[in-house]
């Protein structure tokens, strides 16, 4: 029996259409896109088509898109690049407590080297308060980086409002949109976004390729040096087939987005309501409405997330606990702690993230096996099933 994949926030399966689009760039169009001869130009065509496809998905101009090696690289480029580019103006960066490690760890790296970093708290649903952003802005603030939607609990931030506040103060606004690109509508210019990071493998594209939107006219020093690729903004011979795959994934996402949102939202609600109805002592984490269409995340009292994950794995379901990047650790994730969850409760976190291929039958099968797993674990788990108040989980 093949495993039911409910971990689309970690990565998505590469779509067959994406693989088909990539193959010619591995077989015949293998040239170096920087070469001026016809073999090189054939590879360049693939990159430029992809640039237009990604730009169209974001409401951007093609020249505003550069391709990178990952969402993490895009985030690093923004934080380090903005710190250097705007050093004459100031050294203050504002971010939130629930950012991906690609932002948080880079901000800490910069803080260790003299940058001033403000980490804004979130409320119990994971929302950043735009008024807190406004209050934190100072004369030396150069960059605000707030993710579009959280990878663990799925909360969607009031991005346009926060970005508008930054634009009014001429402070750069960056968003890590790795979880939302291709899944939620994004119009970078209408939303006043200056910089946006995305990753191909979260929208049914290949791994090892990302992109960065840099608003036209905005100066940002390169992160990688060595060649003139990407019009001098990112050195390194391009991952041509990967970029082509990202472009095709972006094209498909743009075409199918409204259908996918409706599909995953309906399944998500079926799953959330089913879990809350059938298993006592389980609470939804994140915002009840402002959440990713495919994200169902919970805290299970009296069970630890890792055991839940492993037991569900044995039953044929791929899910996550905390976040994929921290599931090797027994410590609750920084996101769950930032929501104000007691550590012992946060240890019972479970993230179920659905995809375009998920079905009602799969959700129902999950609902059939989940209650018994929780019951079994509660009998054997060292995590106490009582103690914290019932409303402590968001």
């Amino acid at each position: 029996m093949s495993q039911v994949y409910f971990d689309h926030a970690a990565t998505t399966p590469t779509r067959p259409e994406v693989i088909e689009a990539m193959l010619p760039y591995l077989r015949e169009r293998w040239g170096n896109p920087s070469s001026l001869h016809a073999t090189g130009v054939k590879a360049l065509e693939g990159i430029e088509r992809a640039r237009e496809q990604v730009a169209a998905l974001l409401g951007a101009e093609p020249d505003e898109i550069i391709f990178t090696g990952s969402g993490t690289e895009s985030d690093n480029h923004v934080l380090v690049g903005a710190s250097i580019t705007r050093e004459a103006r100031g050294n203050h960066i504002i971010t939130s407590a629930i950012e991906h490690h690609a932002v948080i760890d880079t901000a800490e790296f910069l803080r260790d080297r003299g940058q001033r970093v403000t980490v804004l708290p979130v409320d119990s649903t994971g929302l950043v308060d735009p008024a807190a952003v406004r209050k934190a802005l100072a004369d030396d603030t150069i960059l605000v980086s707030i993710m579009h939607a959280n990878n663990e609990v799925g909360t969607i931030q009031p991005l346009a409002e926060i970005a508008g506040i930054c634009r009014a103060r001429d402070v750069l606004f960056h968003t890590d949109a790795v979880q939302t690109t291709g899944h939620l509508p994004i119009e970078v210019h209408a939303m006043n976004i200056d910089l946006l990071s995305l990753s191909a493998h979260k929208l049914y594209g290949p791994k090892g390729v990302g992109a960065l939107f840099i608003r036209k006219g905005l100066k940002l020093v390169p992160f990688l040096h060595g060649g003139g690729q990407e019009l001098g903004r990112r050195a390194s011979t391009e991952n041509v087939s990967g970029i082509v795959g990202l472009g095709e994934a972006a094209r498909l996402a743009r075409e199918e987005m409204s259908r996918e949102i409706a599909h995953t939202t309906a399944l998500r609600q079926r799953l959330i309501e089913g879990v809350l109805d059938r298993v006592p002592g389980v609470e939804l984490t994140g915002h009840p409405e402002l959440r990713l269409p495919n994200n169902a995340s919970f805290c299970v009292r009296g069970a630890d997330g890792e055991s839940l994950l492993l037991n569900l794995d044995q039953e044929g379901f791929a899910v996550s606990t905390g976040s994929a990047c921290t599931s090797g650790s027994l410590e609750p994730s920084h996101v769950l702690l930032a929501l104000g969850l007691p550590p012992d409760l946060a240890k019972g976190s479970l993230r179920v993230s659905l995809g375009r291929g998920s079905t009602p039958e799969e959700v129902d099968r999950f609902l059939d096996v989940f209650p018994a797993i929780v019951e079994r674990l509660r009998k054997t788990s060292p995590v106490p099933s009582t103690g914290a108040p019932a409303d402590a989980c968001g």
Partner: protein
Amino acid sequence: MTRSPDKTIDLRGTPCPLNWVRTKLRLEEMQPGMVLEVIVDAGGPARNVPRSVAAEGHKVLQIESSNEGVHVVIERC
């Protein structure tokens, strides 16, 4: 007299061969017989883009220089 273009793209400041690649992508979206106007920089781009257009089998209807750049009018074949 040259037909009025169905589409115009401004590729001034776009180096070779990127200007040709972007011209080609636009042509691919158009129906045979439609007319594309591209504005390129004088010098290499004004020589190379029409040459690549013709090599790809499209028809260069007109090349006209102005203060702003070189206007190349192409019929998609």
